[in-house]
């Protein structure tokens, strides 16, 4: 972050003072910036959690101004999303075909759940 920015510099000064004043409180952060194609997510019999519990403001096509919130959850019982390598574009997701997968696609969408 740019520490030449006076407002931000002031913020840092306050921060340093506060940390000294409350030495019994630990605080930390970690940031992971993950490029496209370098992450994958899978959930089985789960509620929306983690990245799956996020939401994205989207616009319905042809309906300008009508905002909708889209959940990122998609069916992973078929196609590329079945396997970890498939979800990272490193295979065509057939490596587990020898084993049976008992999950059934469930069209939650059609039931109007949200």
């Amino acid at each position, binding site marked *: *972050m740019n520490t030449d920015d006076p407002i931000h510099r002031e*913020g840092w000064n306050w921060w340093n003072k506060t940390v000294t004043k409350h030495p019994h409180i630990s605080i930390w952060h970690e940031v992971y910036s993950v490029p496209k194609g370098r992450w994958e997510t899978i959930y089985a019999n*789960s509620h929306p959690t983690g990245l799956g*519990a*996020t939401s994205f403001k989207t*616009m319905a096509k042809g309906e300008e101004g009508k*905002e909708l919130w889209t959940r990122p959850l998609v069916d992973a019982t078929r196609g590329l999303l079945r396997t970890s390598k498939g979800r990272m574009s490193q295979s065509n997701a057939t490596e587990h075909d020898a084993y049976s997968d008992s999950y059934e696609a469930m069209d939650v969408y059609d039931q109007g759940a949200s």
Partner: protein
Amino acid sequence: MDFTPILAPSPTKPLSQSQMGNRKQGLFELLPSGAAAVFRDQLSLTTWLALGAIIQSILFAAIGRWAFLPALTLVAYRFLDSYLQASGLKRNDYMEAVMQTKFSAQIPDSEGRFGSKPADSEVVVFLLGARINQYNVLGPRHTRHLLIVETNSPFGALAPGGSELDGYFTKMMSDLQDRSEEYGLLGSSSWLSAGERSTKNEIMQLMYFRTTEGLHQFARKSFLLEYNGAATKLNEYR
């Protein structure tokens, strides 16, 4: 073939996992569920039981054998409720929002389409943790800070005290919600470490951002908010 969404888009923004913790859940609950989790972790199980025993003894000394009733009623209610849910006679609260299938999270485009290429956007994961380490300064005020951090705000354990605290955290939280798109904040959840030590465990906020630029913008604004403490300065900045 494009990936198939399993949830219909919603006209209103769904609550984040962090926001769910701001709700009281269930009969006889005294605190919102997020605050309750942190509060419960401030004392050990034996301390809570001993405190209950002391209260029960005082009640018994005051009103005699009727002192048995409140605790008995609560346990009977909870037992019956669990039994009805386990036996299928009542809707199982623990299954709420569970989808019994296998699914993945993929990032939609601006029109809500998923395309057919997995993981086709960058994603930024931000973990923010805090822990209180000392007994003799752990007054109610510090506990309150921690509760506020846990339930309302991803930042702020170190905020200076004072009456502006509530206003500040409310401002902070509404800023986060109002400007989530500006920051590219996609969602957040609150976590309590599972027993690294017996009490006063670490708390953590897990957040997802679209880009590091958005995260830095949020961090910068949070600094300003914390530094200024009051809403007036925030308005000047805006």
